[in-house]
């Protein structure tokens, strides 16, 4: 699940400045559940752009815009409408926009901002978040991730900034280290607090080169464009 939200209309109109015709692409995946680029939002956007004087040559909502194979097959029946447009407005996350821009020989405008969910992937539903750091510290922290629960991703314990259990970033945000403390206390594991943990290895926080070279990626790398 990737979370996105629509950009303000004036930003979108700014991107479209100097153009007359536009094709709108939505996504039935995360953008639909985010309420930023599903069928409903695509229809609303069509009306807004027409009110603003644009000709919308066509619209299409595709299941997962992050999958180039689906982008290409989904646009097959719409090639004329895409060709007639000055640009495509893509109403989904940054990955989807990049996938469309790589698949279609057209200017592609993003209609959404991708919100950082702190590393969630897949069918995740709960409040736990993981940054995929490759050096899991949960054993020391009562099963609460210090990278995502603490605003500074501190591994050595709390900074001095918390007030009444809230992080210095906002009175609405729990101090992750106080949550960790309370959990460790409840589990009778307070001795874990004295572990000297090494500074994070940021090399492990990045995707490994071999991960970028799987057969799945190779399939995605097809150069063929439609439209």
């Amino acid at each position: 699940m990737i979370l996105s939200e629509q950009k303000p209309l004036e930003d979108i109109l700014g991107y479209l400045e100097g153009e007359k015709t536009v094709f709108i692409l939505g996504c039935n995946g995360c953008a639909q559940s985010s309420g930023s680029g599903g069928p409903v939002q695509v229809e609303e956007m069509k009306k807004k752009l027409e009110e603003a004087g644009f000709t919308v040559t066509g619209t299409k909502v595709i299941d997962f815009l992050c999958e180039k194979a689906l982008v290409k097959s989904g646009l097959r029946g719409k090639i004329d409408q895409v060709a007639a447009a000055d640009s495509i407005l893509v109403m989904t996350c940054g990955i989807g926009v990049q996938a469309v821009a790589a698949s279609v020989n057209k200017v592609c405008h993003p209609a959404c901002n991708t919100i950082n969910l702190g590393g969630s992937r897949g069918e995740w539903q709960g409040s736990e978040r993981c940054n995929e750091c490759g050096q899991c510290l949960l054993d020391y922290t009562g099963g609460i991730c210090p990278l995502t629960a603490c605003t500074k991703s501190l591994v050595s314990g709390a900074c001095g900034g918390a007030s009444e259990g809230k992080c210095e970033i906002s009175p609405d945000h729990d101090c992750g280290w106080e949550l960790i403390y309370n959990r460790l206390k409840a589990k009778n594991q307070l001795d874990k607090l004295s572990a000297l943990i090494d500074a994070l290895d940021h090399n492990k926080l990045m995707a490994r080169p071999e991960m970028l070279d799987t057969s799945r990626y190779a399939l995605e790398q097809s150069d063929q464009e439609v439209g």
Partner: protein
Amino acid sequence: MSLKSKLESGKFAITCEVGPLKGTDITEVEENATLLRDKVDAANITDQQSSVMRLGSLITAYIVLQKGLEPIYQCVCRDRNRIALQSDLLSAWVLGIKNVLSITGDLPQLGDHPEAKPVYDLDSVTLLRAIKGLNDGHDMNGNELRGKPDFYAGAVVKVDSDTDASMELQIAKLEKKVAAGAKFIQTQAVYSADSFARFMKRIEKLNVPVLAGVIPLKSAGMAKYMNRSVSGVMVPDDLIQKMTDAEDKKATGIKLCADLIKQLKPLCQGVHIMAIGWEKNVPQIIQEAGL
């Protein structure tokens, strides 16, 4: 006598703060250094304090040193990764700077460049370990140094916390800081000798010199502001009332601070006076406190 010799010989030490300003004008820094050099043992040179961009702490520490005042180079983890931090530490040693204070640092969102990328590659504890490594002649990855420093490293702690969790976390982290190589401790501003005494009792077994932090009050408004906005600062109501009633706010602020130092002195190994713009009054505070 250096700060290190003073604390190691068990004498009561006095430190204060010299904060770099925003811009290239160093007149005030030089004036304050000259004024304070014979009055205090060392001065902390703050590093982009409160995440507000200013002249650097490294160069300011050097300027202060040139003026004859021993600097404590504050090193914040917010703005530099481990390559830059270690490199700046080597530079500091080459410039003659011997004391360093390891701090995690406020979030950028609290300062005047809230859009800045927070680094926190290291934190106050892992930075202390890095300093210890440099002192031992190697970098964080064990690579040997050609010429090594011998820093006197310190750390900070918050004395007053508003939750049990926060209090226990501060103490647990302080223990880690000492284990990681902190040789002296300066505290966040204290306003109650009673709570400071309780805190000192808690950390007795650590056996590390502690300099109690004090901030002279300039007004009742300042006290209320700090109570509201500065984590760990708790000015009691009676002090606020005294500031409200005071006709001469400056004289009263100085006297209250001096009185507090007198109460704290038997409990610790030094005092750290954070004057926040009132540097010129520090000599008077010291005098009234009978130091």
